[in-house]
């Protein structure tokens, strides 16, 4: 037996092609996901240098950021958005890359369709020109976002030049109380360690509360890992993972499936493996979280109040809190549950999966969206949409007064027509509450799907546990 290794160490070791210098390694990439916003300059780079895509079969493309969520059949009206999507379509055709078009039922947000199609498998290295690539770590794959120059590097060579990150383990023990979800675990962790807490690390999530999460919940948690500063989050694969993968279109077929599972079962951290940083959290003590400011680390339990700048010891944080309160139009000391919202957005690669939509339906069935609130639900993929409709969820949503849209990134980053106007305030299941993220001057409060549903019904941030 050699030195005990972490899950990250194992995946890293099995993908090293060569060492360039002390810290720089060439790492093999198993799966490369591509979307329209961060790829045009990479394809152009290939053309200029006369290079090809080394493994079109390991590459997969879909347009998601710019895609309208209404009347997609009519195409894209914004000329710049249209050019970007048309460019992706042309590039995938030229370089022979598999692509789901905007009218394909299987289209959707790249981080939703990767797992859905079985493109995401344990032990893989997965990259995409998008920071929320961390989502795929839920399967025990090393997955992280890259810049466009790196997209070009992967297209040309199927490798990346990388330095090894440090290991961090976040252990979440105990049972999650009713009304508390994976999103609340994520916000609690980010609130605790800060948005730079994971910088330079890969985070492995462990503990019985993590084991108890569905694949959807695990994806939500790994998705938000980047908001804690770590490029990648990992959860060791188990029966829940194998069960999810089995039978998906690109998953291993009978015969090799068993061989794959036998390998996947070796993908966990050895007893005694070294972690540079350890963080612990008790799930049984958690209550639903909301954010009050303009950084995901501005997260507090819904029972709390808006903090004052003087609550922060650090000068930089004090300055940021002052700016955030002004931007958010909030007064220190007011109860978080008194904050009124006029928009609710349910969707995104964080919370646009079927389990998220079921959680919303459970809260809003037989209730009405408050008349001062504009509430939209955007499924993460065409298949999530179809499944939700098969289960009758769309009828529940529409009866309650939600708009039921077509799939895409939508108001998570507002590159398509779905955006907040200046001063609008939104309870959102997305991942970032940065200034202007959901539209210039828009104000975002990050919450779980159940909490977003509760806010839609009452018109203010609400503890979902209080809703009968």
């Amino acid at each position, binding site marked *: 037996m050699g030195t005990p290794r972490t899950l990250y160490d194992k995946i890293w070791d099995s993908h090293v*092609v*060569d060492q*360039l*210098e*002390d810290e720089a390694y*060439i790492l*093999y990439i*198993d799966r490369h996901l591509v979307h329209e916003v*961060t790829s045009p*300059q990479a394809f*152009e780079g290939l053309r200029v240098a006369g*290079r090809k895509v*080394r493994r079109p079969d390991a590459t997969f493309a879909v347009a998601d950021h710019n895609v309208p969520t209404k009347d997609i059949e009519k195409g894209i009206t*914004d000329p*710049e958005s249209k*050019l*970007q999507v048309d*460019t992706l379509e042309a590039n995938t055709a030229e370089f022979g890359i598999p692509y789901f078009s905007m009218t394909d039922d299987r289209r959707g947000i790249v981080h939703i369709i990767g797992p859905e199609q079985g493109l995401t*498998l344990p032990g*893989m290295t997965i990259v995409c*020109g*998008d*920071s929320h690539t961390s989502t795929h770590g839920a399967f025990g794959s090393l997955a992280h976002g*890259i*810049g*466009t*120059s*790196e997209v*070009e590097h992967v297209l*040309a*060579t*199927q*490798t990346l*030049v990388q330095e090894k*990150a440090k290991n961090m383990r976040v252990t979440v023990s105990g049972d999650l109380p009713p009304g508390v979800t994976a999103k609340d675990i994520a916000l609690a962790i980010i609130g605790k360690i800060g*948005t*730079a807490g994971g*910088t330079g690390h890969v985070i492995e999530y462990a503990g019985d509360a993590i084991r108890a999460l569905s694949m959807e919940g695990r994806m939500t948690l790994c998705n938000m890992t*980047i908001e804690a*500063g770590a*490029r990648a989050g990992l959860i060791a694969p188990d029966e829940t993972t194998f069960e999810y993968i089995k039978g998906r279109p690109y998953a291993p077929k009978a015969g*090799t*499936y068993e*061989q*794959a599972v036998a*390998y996947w079962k070796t993908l966990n951290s050895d007893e005694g493996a070294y972690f540079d940083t350890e963080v612990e959290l008790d799930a049984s003590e958690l209550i639903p979280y909301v954010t009050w400011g303009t*950084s995901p*680390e501005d997260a507090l339990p819904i029972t709390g109040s808006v903090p004052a700048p003087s609550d922060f010891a650090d000068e*930089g*944080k004090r*300055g*940021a809190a002052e700016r955030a309160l002004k931007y958010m139009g909030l007064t220190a000391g007011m109860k978080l549950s008194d904050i009124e919202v006029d928009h609710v957005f349910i969707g995104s690669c964080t919370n646009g999966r079927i389990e998220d939509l079921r959680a919303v339906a459970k809260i809003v069935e037989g209730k009405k969206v408050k008349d001062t609130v504009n509430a939209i639900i955007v499924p993460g993929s065409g298949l999530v949409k179809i499944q939700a409709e098969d289960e009758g969820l769309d009828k529940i949503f529409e009866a309650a007064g939600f708009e039921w849209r077509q799939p895409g990134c939508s108001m998570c*980053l507002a*590159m398509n027509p779905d955006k907040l106007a200046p001063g609008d305030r939104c309870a959102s299941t997305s991942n*970032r509450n*940065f*200034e*202007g*993220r959901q539209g*210039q001057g828009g104000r975002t409060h990050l919450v779980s799907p159940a909490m977003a549903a509760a806010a839609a019904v009452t018109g203010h941030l609400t503890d979902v546990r209080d809703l009968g």
Partner: protein
Amino acid sequence: MEKFNKLTAVAAPMPLVNIDTDMIIPKQYLKTIQRKGLGKNLFAEMRYNDDGTEVEDFVLNQPAYRNAEILVAGDNFGCGSSREHAPWALLDFGVRCVISTSFADIFHNNCFRNGILPIEVSPEDLSKLMEDAERGANATISIDLEAQEIRGPDGGVIHFEIDHFNKHCLLTGLDEIGLTMKKEDKVAEYEETRKMQQPWL
């Protein structure tokens, strides 16, 4: 990629912590299919009013800092989205070096692919450099990458750390893809072995 060796320039102070890539380049400017031309949109929502006029007190709108080539910024610079449009916008504006106490990982990587030097310094050194930067156009800061030194306007020297590979890339303006392609044999060999061990991939 343009090489980076030495730079003496005006440094603009941005003491705000957690400056994210949405602030550096808001999403409405990500619809371009070019790398160039983003400088005018750098920090757009902080820099311009709704009617397109300049926000007077924003640092890069002040006469002293219009030609800044260095940013001295609060902790965790470049957090958030992986958009390489952030370093492209900085570069197009003319910024070649950002100094902070820490950088988000993806942004940090993206800088090195674009000839921008991100320098990590201690909180003490950052507040010293922030003070220097606040003195405006008459107080330039000098960077020497080879020697790994920052020289303030009063002659004080701060040594900084940088890993060999990234330093080499900046000093030589290296084509990283070309370098990896020279290892083609090793990649092919790796792929062969993997095909046998994990035929499902």
